[in-house]
């Protein structure tokens, strides 16, 4: 073994125990939540795999195909709604930077209302398709298409519910450590929806218009 074997260390100069050591609770929470968001992205990926595999004309089984169900114009409207809501939440975070409780609440409230706008357009679009007879049970293609639409929509619903809870918590508890990391996590969640939407818009709605 090494030459150091017999030599005893001075425990004063080489501390054996570390004092005053704590973990950054906020950073720990946001990392975990970000990992969760990435696993969610993997779920989106799996759904996109299904959509790719079931995206051919023969997967429509004689029913409506991408050209009929993907409406890029409506989808662009949804884009505007969603991105605006994301921006509003961004303003809430800028207010948080200054510790402004009312600013945070205002931003979240705005994001929430705009998100409802997104949902309204989304729901209207889906209802229109349903009335056309384009339902998830119609074909493998439509199953994959609607599952992606609903999965994204579900995220928006969850986001809205979470915003409601956070409005109450900011009002009741103030900007405590717990509230702050949740606001940060919700930022990750909400801003992440914008990134996912880019792929939804491009590969679900626009691609349908090309072919």
């Amino acid at each position, binding site marked *: 073994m090494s030459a150091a074997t017999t030599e005893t260390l001075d425990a004063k100069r080489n501390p054996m125990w570390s004092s005053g050591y704590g973990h950054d609770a906020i950073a720990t929470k946001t990392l975990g939540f970000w990992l969760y968001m990435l696993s969610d*992205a993997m779920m989106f990926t799996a759904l996109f795999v299904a959509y790719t*595999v079931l995206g051919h004309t023969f997967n429509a089984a004689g029913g409506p195909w991408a050209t009929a169900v993907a409406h*890029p114009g409506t989808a662009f409207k949804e884009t505007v709604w969603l991105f605006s809501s994301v*921006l509003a939440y961004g303003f809430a975070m800028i207010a948080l*930077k200054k510790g402004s409780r009312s600013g945070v609440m205002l931003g979240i409230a705005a994001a929430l209302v705009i998100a409802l706008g997104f949902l309204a357009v989304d729901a209207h679009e889906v209802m229109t398709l349903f009335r056309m007879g384009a339902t998830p049970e119609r074909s493998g293609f439509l199953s994959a298409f609607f599952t992606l639409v609903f999965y994204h929509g579900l995220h928006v619903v969850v986001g809205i519910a979470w915003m409601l809870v956070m409005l109450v918590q900011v009002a009741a508890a103030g900007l405590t450590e717990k509230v*702050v*990391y949740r606001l940060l996590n919700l930022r990750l969640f909400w*801003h992440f929806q914008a990134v996912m939407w880019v792929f939804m818009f491009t*590969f679900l709605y626009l691609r349908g218009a090309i072919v």
Partner: protein
Amino acid sequence: MTHTTDNAWQHPEVQLAGGGYVVAYVVGLALMGLALWLVRGHVGSPLDLGIAMAAIAAVAAIVQCVLLLHMNISETQIWHTVALVLFIPLFILALGLSSWMFHGLYRRTMMMTVPHAAAAPTQAAKTGG
């Protein structure tokens, strides 16, 4: 390093917020609008359009990841970025390899319906025989 309740909002991750959000908003909408315009106007062949759209989507996603999700290599964000960078190849693997295997599979099993199947006579002959 632990943060007490009264100054939690001074945490460095909160301080990341800023004007980048507005830039991300404008760039994101502009890129999506551009893609919509290209598709609506049928500028180019479907293949060209497909490639252009994929490129636009990639740029938009990167802009949003950097400006909205603060993907960078600063001390606060490095692990978030590392995690994303580790995930991206897996997204590509899952999608790419799956479409590759089904592309081949459909050519060999759905000969009546896949338009390009005729272009691969040798393979088609093998399965048919």
